[in-house]
């Protein structure tokens, strides 16, 4: 399948610290990218998106960076809170096609 990996990478941070979650996407033709947050027992929740004509976009406490040269996407969360603990997925869309999800990273916030 297009989403691979049985073992989720894990990032553990202290409450109040900044978190950086990385994602390598697969298709150089992708022109739209989204970060989703998924809590246990829930569906993915939209966090922030970015188009390929941008390299940075900021939201409330979150920033997404896009590096098309190396096909890399990152999500920065400022002042991480216990409520940020979840699995984070990046997703890409090759020119209006289906949304392809990455592997996911589990973020654990220690109080």
């Amino acid at each position, binding site marked *: 399948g297009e*989403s691979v990996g049985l*073992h989720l990478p894990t990032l553990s941070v202290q409450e109040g610290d900044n978190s950086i979650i990385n994602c390598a996407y697969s298709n150089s033709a992708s022109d739209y990218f989204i970060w989703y947050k998924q809590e246990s027992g829930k*569906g*993915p929740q939209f966090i922030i*998106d970015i188009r390929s004509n941008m390299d940075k976009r900021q939201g409330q406490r979150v920033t997404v960076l896009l590096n098309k040269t190396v096909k890399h996407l990152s999500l920065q969360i400022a002042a991480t809170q216990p409520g940020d603990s979840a699995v984070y997925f990046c997703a890409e869309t090759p020119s209006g096609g*289906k*949304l*392809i*999800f990455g592997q996911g990273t589990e973020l654990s916030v220690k109080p």
Partner: protein
Amino acid sequence: DAGVTQSPTHLIKTRGQQVTLRCSPKSGHDTVSWYQQALGQGPQFIFQYYEEEERQRGNFPDRFSGHQFPNYSSELNVNALLLGDSALYLCASSGKAGWNEKLFFGSGTQLSVL
């Protein structure tokens, strides 16, 4: 404003049986997509419905079929269930802004095949 709603939340079936999952999109949305999420993995695209027709399809066998109704709600049908079909099935909706932009997901149906 209700978000995306799915039913049932949990379902247990045996191999060979058939199952139907249901989804109501977020108010104002007209496009419904279905995803399968295996444990520990990201969601995988099954298919998308718009104007009551299948618009795109992922790499899933014909055992997986769907339908969209005039009120934009949708059903996912899986025939001849296999053990490997056990997963969380997610429905997502989007509006006319773009087929896959800002998908809103439901909480999913957890299907267990025994």
